[in-house]
């Protein structure tokens, strides 16, 4: 049993190369669903899902009059291109666009790290510590997902104002962290309890306490789950307008990029076409994060450790 634990726990401090090796090993055991039909289906879905984005992307490089008076696909025949929209997005504000980027990053990182850590610990307790009322409490936490953020705005802001925190980053970090918890706990708990009981039991027999089991046995196995949730938490916080606007306000010292993007359309929405360029400017970072975290989506962490 203990050897099994080791083999599974060995990538505890995984070097990327280890991951790639694992992935390659998995590649050898390739399962081919890849008939011609399957490829066609995949391509059709990919194309359908990309067309709207492609349309927006092309639009973002077209002059205003073209955007308003002809379809974006006509660009293929009438190659009329401009970067004016991007210039306006990048320089059209009273403030440097970089200020908003910095604010977005400063808001997002803690708002991703904090809830994931808290949720991992809580999910561990829900999955591997047997205590009275566990299931009821879990269901309660999970049900909190349905509370719309909008109902929390006034009660929370009232408290923040009382504490003298309104308008600072702290309120945004705290609020985002709390709002992420129900889903994070729910998701991570699901991955956590999928881990074979034998692994945990084996570590227990070896005399490991809960804290040790959590960090040494479970964490390494949860890397893909953590990475996938991290992507989404990153996205939600990065694209959030409401929480930042309510708790931090639109002040340039705290306002994230979304505040700038939202006002691109102008007071009466007359410049709505600028949103096309704005959407891509604000999309760059999340897509990079997605690509960067994808390497942690690897198979085979459990390979050989459990029965088939």
């Amino acid at each position: 049993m203990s050897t099994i634990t080791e083999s599974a726990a060995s990538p505890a401090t995984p070097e990327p190369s280890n991951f790639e090796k694992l992935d390659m090993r998995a590649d050898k055991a390739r399962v081919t669903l890849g008939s011609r039909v399957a490829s066609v289906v995949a391509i059709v879905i990919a194309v359908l899902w990309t067309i709207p984005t492609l349309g927006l992307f092309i639009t973002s490089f077209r002059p205003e009059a073209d955007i308003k008076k002809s379809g974006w696909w006509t660009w293929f025949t009438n190659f009329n291109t401009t970067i004016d929209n991007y210039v306006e997005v990048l320089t059209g504000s009273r403030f440097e666009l970089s200020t908003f980027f910095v604010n977005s990053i400063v808001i997002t990182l803690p708002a991703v790290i904090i809830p994931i850590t808290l949720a991992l610990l809580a999910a561990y307790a829900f999955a591997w510590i047997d205590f009275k009322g566990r299931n009821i409490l879990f269901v309660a936490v999970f049900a909190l997902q349905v509370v719309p953020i909008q109902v929390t705005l006034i009660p929370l802001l009232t408290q923040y104002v009382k504490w003298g925190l309104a308008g600072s980053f702290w309120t945004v970090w705290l609020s985002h962290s709390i709002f992420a918890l129900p889903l994070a706990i729910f998701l991570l708990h699901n991955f956590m309890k999928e881990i074979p009981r034998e692994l945990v039991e084996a570590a227990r027999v070896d005399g490991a306490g809960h804290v040790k089991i959590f960090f040494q046995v479970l964490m390494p196995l949860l890397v893909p789950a953590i990475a996938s949730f991290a992507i989404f938490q990153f996205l939600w916080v990065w694209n959030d307008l409401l929480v930042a606007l309510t708790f931090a306000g639109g002040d340039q010292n705290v306002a994230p990029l979304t505040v700038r993007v939202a006002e691109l359309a102008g007071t009466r929405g007359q410049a709505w076409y600028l949103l096309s360029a704005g959407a891509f400017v604000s999309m760059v970072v999340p897509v990079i994060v997605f690509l960067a975290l994808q390497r942690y989506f690897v198979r085979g962490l459990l390979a050989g450790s459990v029965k088939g």
Partner: protein
Amino acid sequence: MEWLKQADTTGEKFLLMFVAIALFVLVMGVILFVVDRISRPPKWVLVLGFMGPALIGLAFGLVYPALTTVKASFYDANGETFVGADNYVTAFTEDSFQQVLGNTLAWTLLVPILSTVIGLVYAVLVDRTRVEKFAKTLMFMPMAISMVGASIIWKFMYEYKAVIEGLAPERQPAQIGLLNQVLIWLGLEPQQFLLNGPWNNLFLMIVMIWIQSGFAMTILSAAIKAIPDDTMEAARLDGAGGMRLFTSITIPSVRPALVVVLTTIAMSTLKVFDIVRTMTGGNFGTGVIANEFYTQSFKQANYGLGSALAVILFIFVVPLIVYNVFQMRKSEEMR
């Protein structure tokens, strides 16, 4: 301590950010260290050590506001006078409320199911292919486009311009929406996608499905990768083909993840109102509860009625809870 609240320069902001993270790590480290140090800790200490911070946060940030909302739903617009169940009566006797309820139900059923199916199929199909990363990025992109961007993307899909009788071909209004252009290329009449019910609801849902499939795909892909290779290998040696593998190995293996994805998408669908709000404003029979809730609470300053609608939204979650409890029991038994 003022510098902890006010950060003006980029350097100060990053410093503040690191201070916040360090502070958090420190606090959590101390808690876990203490828990770990106690030999044979009582169970409640353990549980508190692991979930205490999360539970405090939830109580403050979600439970308390939710309770305030329930209370506000029994008060008038200003939250001053107790009005009993009046707000609920108003909500339910509203002319279009039946339709709003029906739409909400359709959204919470169709969006999760379709997004999950598409996400799963796609995740399986691109898994282990050479272009996997690229292919997944394509489906992920809609999630990365903020709502503001998404609202105008679909204008370029659904926008309607008629083919006007009598107007010379070269003067016909140019189509802005791709779907109608496709209809014209096919020799059909352009359609008012967002106007004609009940189909307009479907066209709004497509936007949400387009966004949420990326979520389903990502989570399910992680789950698929957790299926031990030997399991697949063994099934293949038994002579299972692509379809058999999918139904007899992949689906059962990712079943818990499927439940999670379905539930999560259903929850976000219940709450989503931006799509309806920006595309039809709830007109043309496309209203959903979340949009009504938002309109009443924040546009018409009727907190009482708005809160009652939020509570009705809470009630929609009961079937989801029941479903999940059922699934949890099932997987407990299997363990």
